[in-house]
């Protein structure tokens, strides 16, 4: 028996790269992120340059994705839009993961009265229409993109908290948690070293589902005038715009829709792959 001194992360990376779907997902996400980062050098036009004489034109050599009713190049607008959408998607998901995992794990582990109070708070927040909540946050903290990310993260953590809490409650009955308590391991250490790593699977899967949800919510908020301001754009905004022209100019919904779906699929494949790679029980050797 020869033992390689592999850390969890090295081992996880090796197994992630053995999973074809995950590698595909990772590649697509990387390409999309790279495109978003280098947009100013790649975009063929300015995102706000109008050509009213041209109007809404179908895809052509000059405008590969076509133009919208103001004659703006869709490819350019999608490139710029991807910066907002990806940033919103990842940052808001990160914020919601941070809050949700901590809140749920603490609530589930402490249990009893603390759990009751924390989870009833979640129920109350669930009952509030989320848009109302975002508006309050945006009005109170000012209208900026960063605040939009945080506000979206702040409403997305509720489900994450419930998922994590449920998992933690079933886990804390396990004897390894009791062994840690008996050993004198501190409560934060039990929660973050023993419990959270064991809930990583559902957390990652749910996080990959949160990314597209947040992208669409951003579109809704921008539509209300609280998020991204025209002539700036995002995928969500382009789609809600495209829906209105579905019959005559279908390319306006097809391209943003395709890329949003592609992102969603890639993230799901990547999420599944990560979940399996991070679970030592799936180790194939």
């Amino acid at each position: 028996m020869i033992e390689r001194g592999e850390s969890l992360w090295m081992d996880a990376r090796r197994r992630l790269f053995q999973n074809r779907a995950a590698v595909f997902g990772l590649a697509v996400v990387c390409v999309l992120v790279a495109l978003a980062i280098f947009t100013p050098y790649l975009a063929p036009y300015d995102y706000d340059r109008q050509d009213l004489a041209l109007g809404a034109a179908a895809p052509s050599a000059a405008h590969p994705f076509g133009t919208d009713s103001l004659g703006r190049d869709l490819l350019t607008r999608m490139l710029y839009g991807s910066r907002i959408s990806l940033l919103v998607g990842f940052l808001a998901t990160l914020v919601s993961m941070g809050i949700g995992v901590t809140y749920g794990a603490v609530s589930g582990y402490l249990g009893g009265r603390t759990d009751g109070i924390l989870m009833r708070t979640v129920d109350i927040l669930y009952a509030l229409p989320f848009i109302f909540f975002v508006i309050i946050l945006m009005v109170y903290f000012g209208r900026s993109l960063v605040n939009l990310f945080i506000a979206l993260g702040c409403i997305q953590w509720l489900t994450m908290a419930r998922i994590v809490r449920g998992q933690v409650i079933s886990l804390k009955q396990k004897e390894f948690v009791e062994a840690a308590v008996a050993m004198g391991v501190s409560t934060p250490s039990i929660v973050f070293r023993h419990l959270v790593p064991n809930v990583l699977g559902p957390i990652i899967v749910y996080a990959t589902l949160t990314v597209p949800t947040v992208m669409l919510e951003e579109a809704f908020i921008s539509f209300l005038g609280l998020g991204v301001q025209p002539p700036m754009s995002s995928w969500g905004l382009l789609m809600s715009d495209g829906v209105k022209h579905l019959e005559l100019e279908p390319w306006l919904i097809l391209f943003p829709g395709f890329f949003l779906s592609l992102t969603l699929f890639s993230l799901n494949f990547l999420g599944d792959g990560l979940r399996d790679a991070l679970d030592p029980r799936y180790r194939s050797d």
Partner: protein
Amino acid sequence: MSADGMPLLNIADLKVHFPIYRGLLWRKTMGLVKAVDGVSVSVRRGEVLGLVGESGSGKSTLGRAVLGLNRPCGGSISYGGVDLLRLGKREFRPYRSKIQIIFQDPYSSLNPRMTVYDILSEPLRVHERLTRSEHRRRVSEMLDRVGLEEAHMNRYPHEFSGGQRQRIAIARAIIVRPDLIIADEPVSALDVSIQAQILNLLVDLQQSFQLTLIFISHDLAVVRHIADTVAVMYLGKIVESAPADRLYARPLNPYTQALISAVPSVDPATRARRIILKGQIPSPSDPPSGCHFHPRCPHAVDRCAREEPPPAEFAPGHHSACWFSEFPPS
């Protein structure tokens, strides 16, 4: 298995009761499960105490109370003269390294996300300030001591068999050099062929580290192999305790007699004398009146249903709680 006479742990009149709640919004206490109800027992330094009983007799609850895993509602647990139940969370901390536990199921007692090294170094991290290389040295020393290899350090629990996992759990318990180990049915979940190996390992470690051991089990044959003193529990009470040799040779309590007669034997003469108990262990939330054992006892009389027999000493170190222990039937 030597004991030098000084009591390390002294449990006096310990009571652990669990309330039963009913109702969702207005919680009402419907009753009490008296898992441990007035248990007194003491363990000398270096002694092995065997704690036997059926499932539901409260033997595990007793062990867990010593570790502070459940809160007793009465009595005292004195460890080296200090009452553990009076200590706050902070004051209890030093004792967490002195008292360790080995659980029954090695599949659920090891965190599946941690490597063997992480599992074994955690108690060291909590209780001792060591450098990285010292950590590694202690862990590999301990792995060697329990019959595993240094090479196993970077593996995960699922890569081991049940017996090997239990070795890891044992290593985790003794790596901080505790005085007292509570072994809660440490071999019950294992294959019979592995049980003997793990038992021998425990005996070996107990002797070389001068450990005091509370060995909880429902298997009298296993306890006989390892214990100096045996205490038999029934429905939250100790019904009989005696030095192991004496208890197996001359059990005084009818319950102990029935248990010992149930140990499988190859001798047909012994097999014939088996005492069959009627019924099952009653619910600890609604124990029978008087002597808890009377509905199942072959020798019960009216008095047993009315009055609870106090534990009495019938020979040096031999206690039994039965009205008729003076005249052991047949």
